[in-house]
């Protein structure tokens, strides 16, 4: 019975810690390869856009960071739900490890969006549905991080943070569908499962960049969760052994 592959085993910090350590280099390698390929295609090979000239190339960072800012939040909300339902220790740590990266992605989405908006719309910022809901997402990340550090007891911090994450998840479909639901200055989505409005080579560049950001985010979050595990599980024998063994 114990020999069988058991998913629950990986929800234990003691087994997840070394596993995460082994996975990080692979995600760094994959992220670097996807990033180099994406930059090569996007910045060197892809042709000029017939409407936006070379300015459209901002898409190769704007869309991946925007996708990641929404996706990381969904993953955090997933961990929050698991943590609240099953009271697993690792889920709160995962949510905490992802939050700073998600916040940075939301910031980058707004930053690159502003730099794109200025030449194309003539303004850095408008209080339009897409932009405003993305700004709220950044505030949700910051609010979650502030709430979690403000509560001393780690398990209670996880619970309070988890509830905030689950309430805030309603913002994600609002961001995603904002360009459909409201008249916005922001253009509609250029990528669609059935048809896409982009030239194929541009689409490839963007997808490769999105994969690169995905790999980067996983690598950084895994590295961060390892530190959180050590800190939170420092009373256990295996963490003591890891620390005194000198290779922690």
């Amino acid at each position: 019975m114990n020999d069988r592959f058991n998913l629950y085993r990986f929800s234990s910090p003691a087994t997840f810690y070394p596993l995460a350590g082994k996975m990080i280099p692979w995600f760094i390698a994959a992220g670097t390869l996807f990033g180099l390929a994406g930059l090569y295609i996007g910045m060197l090979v892809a042709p000029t856009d017939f409407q936006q000239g070379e300015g459209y190339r901002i898409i190769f960072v704007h869309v991946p960071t925007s996708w990641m800012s929404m996706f990381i939040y969904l993953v955090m909300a997933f961990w929050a739900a698991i943590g609240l339902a099953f009271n697993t220790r690792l889920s709160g740590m995962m949510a905490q490890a992802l939050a700073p990266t998600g916040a940075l992605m939301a910031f980058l989405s707004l930053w690159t969006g502003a730099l794109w908006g200025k030449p194309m719309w003539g303004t850095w910022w408008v209080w339009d549905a897409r932009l405003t809901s993305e700004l709220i997402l950044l505030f949700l990340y910051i609010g979650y991080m502030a709430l979690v550090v403000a509560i001393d007891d780690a398990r209670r911090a996880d619970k309070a943070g988890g509830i905030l994450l689950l309430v805030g998840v309603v913002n994600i479909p609002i961001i995603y569908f904002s360009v459909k639901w409201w008249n916005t200055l922001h253009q509609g989505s250029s990528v669609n499962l059935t048809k896409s409005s982009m030239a194929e080579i541009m689409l490839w560049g963007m997808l490769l960049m999105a994969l690169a950001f995905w790999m980067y985010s996983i690598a950084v979050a895994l590295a961060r969760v390892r530190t959180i595990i050590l800190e939170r599980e420092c009373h256990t024998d295996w963490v003591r052994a890891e620390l005194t063994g000198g290779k922690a």
Partner: protein
Amino acid sequence: MIHWNSFSDFLAMGGYGLYVWGSFGVTALIMVIEPIAVARQRKTTVARLKRQLRAESRSTEA
């Protein structure tokens, strides 16, 4: 086939250089700083936990 005729063409980005490089530059900067911050955080945490552990073992021996 490379789209650009010269390196200065590439830098100019058809007049959008400031906006394009401003986007890529800040993104790259954050992707360098964040891993450094994570590594530093790990170092200080491990050092602090080791100190705690030593202090604890001293107090139990005494």
